[in-house]
């Protein structure tokens, strides 16, 4: 008997071109693009930005890239066990991060170092979990930036619940912009296949939660191209959940900022969720453990290297005269200093006291943990005594 196998037709699509729906304000050479159907709703936000805004956004891009490079280098020097680089995604993260106000809350995955930066988390604190001294060395309530979440998709639901809590607290749609708050939740293109992600969209939609889903479509989930994750891009799927989806050029920081700001404003004022798909690219490896040459072509990477978000913003600033050359030189110096500090403080990060391994498993006293802590301490002490004799 002859069996015919039916496999899904190849759905490869161009992962270098975001298509006509994509919101974009600056072209590859840094020229301001004319108003068109896609970017028109956000044009005013970009118009309102000052030279000072542009400079400080650019500064974020450069410092974030430098911090990321340092993370990578520290891993190679054996100081970190792993580093997930954001190289190429700086504009997506800075644009999104800067659209948040202090009272907003961000729920990251594990690559959102640029968002952490915008929230005011000290970059050194991001290193702890990759060095293995903690599971996240920052107090998430201090910066309203949740801990990194490794299980893909889990945090999307936490974000949704948190946003529902804000609703209940009456800090949404109060008419006072300083009070109104919303949540931004981050995951990748691979993450959009997860059940938790899809459940989060259902819950957020039904609750009309003050929430912006921010998908960084960096085209790859480790070795799988995004067309192995979906046949309809994330921004189009949002409609099916009952709220708007927008695709934005994730390498155009002005566009990301404008789209994210509009979505957060809508969420804060009680108009419910928005999904933003930032069309971008992971220029480096998935993590320091990955070898991207096994699954993608140098030609593809080259196309995206041409779309470098920092180069583009710099071109824009120069054409517009937003900064003089000293700004750029001074920024390089600042980046060097930041990198040196990160390296120094990473190397100085002490191993935790062994017995603290037992801390903070429970809020209230727990006899099993207490007994094991005591046993462990006694066991440790027995070595000290032996050494002393």
């Amino acid at each position: 008997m002859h069996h015919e196998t039916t496999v899904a037709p190849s759905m490869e699509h161009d992962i270098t071109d975001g298509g006509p729906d994509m919101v974009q304000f600056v072209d590859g050479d840094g020229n301001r693009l004319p108003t068109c159907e896609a970017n028109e709703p956000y044009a005013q936000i970009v118009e309102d930005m000052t030279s000072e805004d542009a400079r400080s956004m650019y500064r974020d891009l450069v410092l974030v890239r430098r911090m990321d490079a340092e993370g990578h280098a520290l891993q190679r020097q054996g100081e970190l066990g792993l580093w997930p680089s954001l190289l190429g995604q700086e504009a997506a993260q800075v644009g999104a991060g800067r659209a948040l106000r202090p009272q907003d809350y961000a729920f990251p995955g594990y690559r959102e170092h640029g968002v952490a930066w915008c929230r005011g988390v000290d970059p050194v604190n991001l290193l702890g979990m990759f060095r293995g001294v903690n599971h996240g060395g920052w107090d998430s309530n201090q910066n309203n930036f949740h801990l990194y979440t490794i299980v893909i998709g889990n945090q999307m639901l936490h974000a949704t619940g948190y946003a529902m809590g804000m609703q209940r607290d009456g800090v949404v749609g109060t008419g006072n912009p300083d009070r109104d708050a919303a949540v931004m939740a981050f995951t990748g293109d691979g993450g959009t296949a997860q059940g938790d992600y899809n459940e989060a969209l259902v819950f957020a939609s039904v609750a009309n939660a003050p929430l912006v889903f921010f998908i960084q479509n960096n085209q790859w989930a480790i070795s799988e191209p995004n067309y192995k994750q979906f046949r309809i891009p994330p921004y189009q799927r949002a409609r099916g959940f009952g709220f708007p989806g927008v695709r934005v050029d994730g390498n155009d920081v002005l566009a990301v900022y404008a789209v994210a700001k509009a979505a957060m404003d809508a969420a804060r004022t009680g108009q419910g969720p928005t999904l933003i798909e930032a069309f971008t690219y992971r220029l480096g490896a998935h993590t320091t453990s990955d070898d991207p040459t096994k699954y993608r072509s140098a030609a593809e990477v080259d196309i995206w290297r041409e779309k470098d978000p920092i180069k583009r913003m710099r071109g824009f600033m120069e054409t517009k005269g937003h900064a003089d050359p000293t700004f750029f030189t001074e920024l390089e110096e600042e980046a060097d200093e930041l990198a040196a500090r990160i390296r120094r403080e990473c190397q100085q990060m002490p191993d935790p006291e062994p017995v603290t391994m037992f801390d903070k498993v429970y809020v209230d006293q727990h006899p099993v943990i207490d007994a094991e802590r005591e046993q462990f301490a006694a066991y440790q002490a027995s070595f000290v005594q032996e050494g002393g004799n």
Partner: protein
Amino acid sequence: MSTQRMTLAKGLNSGLRKAMEDDPKVILMGEDVGKLGGVFRITEGLQKDFGEDRVIDTPLAEAGIVGTAIGLAMRGYRPVVEIQFDGFIYPAFDQIVSQVSKMHYRSLGALKLPMVIRVPFGGGIGAVEHHSESNEAYFAHTAGLRVVACSDPADAYWMIQQAIASDDPVIFYEPKRRYHERAEVDLDAPPVGLYDARVVRPGTDLTLLTYGPMVKTCVQAAEAAATEGHSLEVVDLRALSPLDRKTIFDSAKKTGRVVVVHEASTFLGMGAELAALVQQECFYHLEAPVLRVGGYNLPYPPSRFEEHFLPDLDRVLDTVDRSLAF
């Protein structure tokens, strides 16, 4: 009037009501918990009195229910989540073991998740598949969670309030086949501690360690054994994590014989831990090996088998005889 006769279901309902009255941050979430009052009516009338914002009918998505409850707890709420039936907790398993249990630890203590996950558990009600499971060992095995099971109306009333007051996340098992059993509940007496085991019936010859729906079965076994001159002590563990070791060990040392009884399959069930602990700590006091009575190591079978699958009076007594024969 401080003493009321009520069912276990009513005990839970009254306990939830009390907790909601006492603390406006307590919210209930789950499938059908609103107008219907839950498929077992445990939340009956609560939405009417506390509103849709505090008794939330959620989408039918267990990971979503538990995952959003995490976010709400982070925001300062005390969510009490209802899982409709034991066999439907698995879609939320990841959220529970990866996130609920670890949030306090991974945040170095900065975050608390004061949430309760209510699970009607166990068999004996003639249900279709996935409605009769005892999955407590999965959660008791996971550090960061607390796991408790009530067995009678008074405990139902008090334990649910104590679980809600806990700053640690609690998996709260309710013996669904005992929902409609009645007893006197003293609404004023100070409750037993949430993590304390309770000697339900004192005895001298052998200890039955049990919890949840099997407590009643064990008490009946003890009554039957008494007619043959054997004095059995019945200990209701109440807490499965952390265990109240002292009460367990005191009883084991007193009687010298221990039989663990639960509905869950015996292989790597709670009984495995209890047997290991008791032999480790009470070895010189034991007259017999610790024996276990549990469900067989099968998927929960179709309901026409369940009277054979589940431990009953005879199987408990048979095992008691084996222990006494050593």
